[in-house]
């Protein structure tokens, strides 16, 4: 359910933009025949219905998938973690949409005004708002996204109740009207007269009929029939029902209400125009009088039916007064405009790929359609690890059955199983979201033609970094595993693979200065270790006790991760019961984690652990102390 809601939210934002465009175009099209405006509303309807769009260069839609909400739902344990980790939203699920947010421009979906601000001068705003304001916007967006994710259960419940109310209303109206019109008697060809209805309308879907109230004045009847016949020919009764269904689904979006109301008016005016297009002036006048007489004694009924006098009689009469039979030029120009608008509005912008030639860039997020469980994967990996690890293999897989790690297993989701063409080889990426904080990323490279190139992994997420990865090459497969540590939950993460042949990490996507690394290489000997910041991640080892080493220690603002390895490569120590604390600049000592529930990941040789922490300032840490239950303390001094 949440997934559908997020999909709907994601569709509603670009659609909201398109509605605004149509409303503005509508002002300019006052003189043009009104059916053109109706066609424009058709574009809006397609956009609201269709989750998939074609990309085009001339698209003017600013955001393709503006709310990249990856989360599907939060389990209770997640919520507990959530409160524990102070505002960091933890995901359990997968991306619900493909995220293409190269400049991280995320728009708040609940605030159309803000969205509007960004629409006007899209590029301008992007450059101007590069400073603090943009950061503030991002923070706000993040908070709102987080709020939506946290309240996903309730919000989707509210949404579905709203939809059901609309549907129930529609259903009740349908049933009661069907009862009324069952007593209608034939008047003419497919035209019926009924006692209990207040205004003329068309009823039915497969075999629609025109119903006239029996109280209708004889003089009016020909006008009313002419009007309804045009509706009938244009199948307007179906469009109206479609519009109502869309309104029911998007009931929470004010702009869709605007669209519905304006569309209801336009459809009537377009119909009137058609009726009077061949009329003499005095006939037109009579028609307008009929319109008035049909509207006076009637309350406005909100419904999906086409009522003769239902909407905006004043506007309709005024439109009729202004109406001139449109010249062919005006009509053709209008249709052309419509076609251009369709291309511009129905497509999403192409993402600029500045150096797209030699470099295959894979930007993906998992989509819900191809989420599959990792259990199979797991067993595969076990098989792969078996030959390398000796008797203790069981120990390695065991942690996943223990309480702390079980959760990790539960939280694992495999992402896309789509196979990408990548630099001459096929890449089958998977990714696993542990809790929104640490991503484990793996892919298989199949069918190497030549020697496998080294592959770099980067992300577009601010302050996220690849903490650790390893590559295993077998005969026909290369498996890479990587920790991507995100300092906070950001629903929009692009994972970028680039081959070393076309070289290095894509600076553009990464946002070189926004990616702040706190990768600390640790060179540990017995007792105290001195490390320096921002150097490359080289595998220094230090003994915790005999044969056990701690490799790369990475500290981010909200997590600390490291690798525990056994020098004999036959066993991996579980850091259960270890205590990690940090000495801060001001001399305070702060508990980072008591390792209750580490996120564990094995590449077959090493055990990677990651711990959520309270908010940390990595630059304030001068020393990290790790102590085991057996009393083997290791201290790492950071310079």
């Amino acid at each position, binding site marked *: 359910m949440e997934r559908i809601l997020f999909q709907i939210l994601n569709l509603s934002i670009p659609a909201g933009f398109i509605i605004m465009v149509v409303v503005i175009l509508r002002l300019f099209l006052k003189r043009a025949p009104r059916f053109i405006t109706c066609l424009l509303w058709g574009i809006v309807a397609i956009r609201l219905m269709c989750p998939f769009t074609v990309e085009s260069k001339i698209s003017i839609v600013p955001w393709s998938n503006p709310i990249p909400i990856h989360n599907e739902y939060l389990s209770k344990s997640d919520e507990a973690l959530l409160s524990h980790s102070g505002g960091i939203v933890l995901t359990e699920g997968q991306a619900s949409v493909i995220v293409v947010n190269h400049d991280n421009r995320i728009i708040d979906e609940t605030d159309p005004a803000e969205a509007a601000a960004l629409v006007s001068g899209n590029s301008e705003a992007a450059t101007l708002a590069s400073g603090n304001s943009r950061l503030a916007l991002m923070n706000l967006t993040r908070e709102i996204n987080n709020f939506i994710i946290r309240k996903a259960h309730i919000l989707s419940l509210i949404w579905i109740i709203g939809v059901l109310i609309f549907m129930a209303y529609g259903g009740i109206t349908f049933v009661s009207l069907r009862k009324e019109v*069952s007593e209608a*008697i*034939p008047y003419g060809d497919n035209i019926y*007269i*009924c*006692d*209990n209805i207040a205004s003329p309308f068309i009823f039915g879907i497969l075999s629609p009929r025109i119903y006239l109230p*029996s109280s209708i004045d004889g003089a009016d009847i020909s006008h009313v029939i002419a009007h309804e016949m045009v509706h009938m020919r244009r199948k307007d009764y179906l469009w109206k029902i479609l519009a109502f269904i869309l309104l029911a689904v998007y009931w929470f979006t004010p702009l869709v209400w605007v669209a519905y109301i304006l569309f209801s008016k336009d459809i009537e005016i377009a119909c009137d125009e058609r009726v009077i297009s061949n009329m003499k002036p005095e006939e037109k006048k009579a028609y307008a009088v009929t319109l008035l007489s049909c509207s006076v004694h009637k309350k406005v009924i909100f419904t999906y039916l086409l009522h003769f006098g239902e909407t905006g009689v004043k506007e309709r009469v005024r439109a009729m007064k202004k109406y001139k039979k449109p010249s062919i030029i005006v009509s053709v120009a209008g249709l052309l405009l419509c076609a251009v608008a369709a291309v511009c509005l129905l497509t999403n912008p192409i993402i600029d790929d500045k150096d797209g030639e030699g470099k295959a860039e894979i930007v993906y997020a998992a989509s819900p359609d191809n989420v599959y469980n990792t259990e199979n994967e797991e067993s595969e990996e076990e098989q792969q690890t078996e030959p390398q690890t000796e008797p203790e293999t069981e120990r390695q897989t065991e942690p996943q059955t223990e309480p702390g790690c079980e959760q990790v297993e539960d939280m694992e989701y495999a992402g896309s199983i789509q196979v990408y063409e990548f630099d001459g080889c096929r890449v089958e990426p998977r990714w696993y979201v542990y809790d929104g904080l640490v991503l484990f990323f793996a892919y298989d490279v199949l069918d190497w033609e030549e020697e496998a190139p080294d592959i770099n992994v980067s992300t577009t997420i601010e302050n996220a970094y690849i903490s650790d990865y390893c590559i295993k090459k077998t005969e026909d497969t290369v498996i890479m595993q990587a920790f991507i540590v995100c300092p906070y939950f950001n629903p929009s993460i692009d994972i970028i693979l680039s081959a070393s042949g076309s070289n290095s990490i894509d600076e553009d996507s990464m946002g070189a200065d926004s990616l702040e690394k706190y990768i600390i290489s640790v060179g540990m000997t017995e007792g105290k270790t001195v490390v320096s910041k921002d150097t490359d991640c080289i595998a220094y080892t230090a003994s915790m006790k005999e044969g056990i080493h701690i490799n790369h220690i990475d500290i981010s603002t909200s997590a600390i991760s490291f690798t525990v390895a056994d020098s004999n490569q036959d066993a991996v120590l579980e850091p259960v019961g270890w205590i990690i604390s940090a000495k801060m600049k001001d001399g305070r000592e702060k508990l980072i984690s008591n390792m209750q529930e580490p996120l564990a990941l094995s590449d077959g040789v090493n055990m990677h652990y990651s711990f959520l922490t309270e908010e940390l300032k990595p630059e304030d840490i001068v020393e990290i102390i790790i102590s085991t239950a057996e009393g083997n303390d290791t201290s790492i001094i950071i310079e």
Partner: protein
Amino acid sequence: MQEIQLGVVESRFADMIWENEPISSTELVKMTAGEFNWARTTTHNVIRRLCDKGIFVNNGGTVTSLISREEFYSMQSKQFVENTFSGSLPAFIAAFTRDRNLTEGEIGQIRALIDDMEG
């Protein structure tokens, strides 16, 4: 007697009963199915409603009228004059004849009517 109002459709149906009474409800169902395209339940619903209004009575499937067609329409026109012209017959005739002149024959008929009432 309370006011009875029939819609256009209802009066068409009522006419059908008056023309054929006494008539069984199954017969009515057949007739309405042919002429109005009505479903069986619809016909029964309308019969029940007209019976509730006190115009007809349904005795074990046979529908007969309580009020004759002439009675009903004289009642209707009386109500009409009552409501529209505050019961004033001359006002009604004045309104009726405003836009058209009465023919000699019509004048004669009305005279005869008045003479009849006086006598």
